[in-house]
């Protein structure tokens, strides 16, 4: 870690300067809430935001993207997708930072996904330390995502009239030295930073009734829990939970045809394991036909399957699914109930 100081005015200037060379995205206010959005003016940013409706994932894995274009003329020709623009994402909270690290692992290992990788390679992440809990649904402290020691290029901590900037990578170092006017952190800055960080930790509650390291084994022993049927009876299969999730990466692929019926494009879009047709094959057989089994699959993914496969938990405790759910299915509620059932049973 190396530390430097950026005044709030210098931060505005920094954003104004990178806007000339980068697509810049960050938290902005909209209809009483907050979203990640491409900005064109530093004044649009709301760096002190509780949470956003959608995570910044959409800049790395867009809701909809063209994989390639095709034409059926001359025996058929395929054309690659256009190059993504260099991008800076500002104001990423540490929960979302952990989620991006999972996405990096998924798409940049095994069979490499160059569509994701090409965007990721051109994306710089400027994260920001959360100093207050966003609301009653977040449980980042329980999931170990209230802080992050990697995954960012620059990391900001709000010290009132200035930011402490932690440089995470060489790319971050180059960005800040080229576009920002900084000053070295002095003794007073570091004392203030320590005081701010020390004051923040007690404000965040633990919401899980057990240590997160127990989550995979709790889930493994919960395959036959009666809770899944209760969730299935309530679930509307609307897929809001997976649509707002920073770690969900499942997708569908479809062809779109131009009106000339000769040209077209293959498009990838977000999909959801909560939808009825997700595991349905041609001919109509559905391998996960009930909402109960689909809810079980979702929570198993979040707390166990993804961890087993990718060494990162599939849930970062951001609470977005809990906020989005119309029938109050929450990960904190589910995980704690499974723990309670096991304690009662043993």
């Amino acid at each position, binding site marked *: 870690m190396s530390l430097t100081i950026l005044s709030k005015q210098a931060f505005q200037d920094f954003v104004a300067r990178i806007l000339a060379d980068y697509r810049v995205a960050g938290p902005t206010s909209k209809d009483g809430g907050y979203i990640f959005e491409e900005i064109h003016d530093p004044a649009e940013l709301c760096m002190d935001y509780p949470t956003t409706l959608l995570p910044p994932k959409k800049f790395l894995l867009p809701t909809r993207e063209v994989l390639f274009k095709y034409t059926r003329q001359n025996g058929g020709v395929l054309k690659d997708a256009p190059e993504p623009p260099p991008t800076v994402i500002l104001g990423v909270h540490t929960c979302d930072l952990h989620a991006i690290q999972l996405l990096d692992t998924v798409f940049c290992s095994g069979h490499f996904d160059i569509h994701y990788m090409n965007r990721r390679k051109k994306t710089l992440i400027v994260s920001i330390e959360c100093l207050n809990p966003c609301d009653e649904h977040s449980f980042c402290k329980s999931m170990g995502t209230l802080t992050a020691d990697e995954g960012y290029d620059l990391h900001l901590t709000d010290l009132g009239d200035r930011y402490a900037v932690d440089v995470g990578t*060489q790319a971050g170092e180059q960005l800040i030295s080229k576009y920002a006017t900084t000053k070295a952190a002095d003794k007073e800055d*570091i004392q203030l930073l320590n005081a701010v960080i020390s004051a923040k930790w007690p404000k965040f509650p633990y919401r899980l009734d057990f240590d997160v390291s127990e989550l995979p084994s709790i889930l493994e022993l919960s395959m036959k829990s009666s809770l899944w049927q209760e969730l299935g009876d309530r679930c509307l299969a609307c897929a809001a939970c997976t649509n707002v999730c920073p770690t969900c990466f499942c997708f569908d692929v479809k062809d779109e045809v131009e009106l000339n019926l000769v040209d077209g494009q293959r498009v990838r879009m977000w999909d959801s394991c909560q939808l009825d047709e997700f595991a349905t*094959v*041609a001919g109509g*057989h559905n391998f996960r036909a009930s909402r109960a089994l689909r809810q079980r699959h979702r929570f198993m993914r979040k707390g*166990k*399957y993804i961890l087993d496969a990718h060494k990162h938990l599939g849930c970062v405790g951001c609470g977005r699914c809990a906020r989005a759910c119309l029938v109050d299915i929450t990960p904190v509620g589910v995980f704690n109930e499974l723990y309670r059932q096991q304690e009662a049973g043993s």
Partner: protein
Amino acid sequence: MVAIASYPQTKVYPNTEQDIYLPYFAEIVDIRPMTALEKVFTIELPKGMSLGHRPGQFMEVSVFGIGEAPISISSSPSRSNGTFELCVRKVGDVTTALHNLKPGDKVGLRGPFGRGFPYENFRGKDILFVPGGLGLAPLRSLINQVLDERAHYGRVIILYGARNPGELLFKDELKAWGERDDVELHVTVDRGDETWTGNVGVVTTLFKHISIYPRNTVGITCGPPVMYRFVLMEFFGKGISEGNIYLSLERRMKCGVGKCGHCQINNVYACQSGPVFSYREIKGLEEAL
């Protein structure tokens, strides 16, 4: 600047230009109608290309403008000479579009994907094949591979069931297999018709016709989802061990490369770890059967 510790190197991403989602074009050189619903397509690979597949693997087949679907390879590696075969049932959008194509038309291809049958491990053993319906399509690849290197294997027993005589696939090959001394073929249909003189009943009713030495027998099955647990009971009833039972499972393999999520069986991506599994590998998976 206060240097507390040196920051990590900028993250290095794997350097690749290869797009795993980009198909290549290949030409359909022959189409053989098989039943009212199934056709066999012979596809010629671009010059110099070899599919290099293993029986049990599948291809992602594109009809541009309609989409892409996973289809098991029906021909054996032993008979692939720059071409391969797909036996396709007209059941969804892509397969219906495939059925409307003519020889000379092109399709998009990705693959082969997945884990096929470890047939080298079956050498020296008796093999009991139990295909049901369209399940013969992937198993035909393995059956012909085994028959083309027949001396390496013990007995070859095939128990094949279809719903009615009109739905029997590869009838000419069934006839040829039935005429061989070194293949024991039993065929049944769920419902016969006025011309049918053979067995009537579901495929599991054929097990009573055979006796085997289970210690040296590999049991292999593929068919509609409902079939597996009944065939497994027959395998166990004959004394075949869990590790010697192989199943090819159908799932919605959309991407073929372990990303899109549709083919998951609990935590297992069928497109990567399957579609061929030994029973021992999947017996702990709630969602497998």
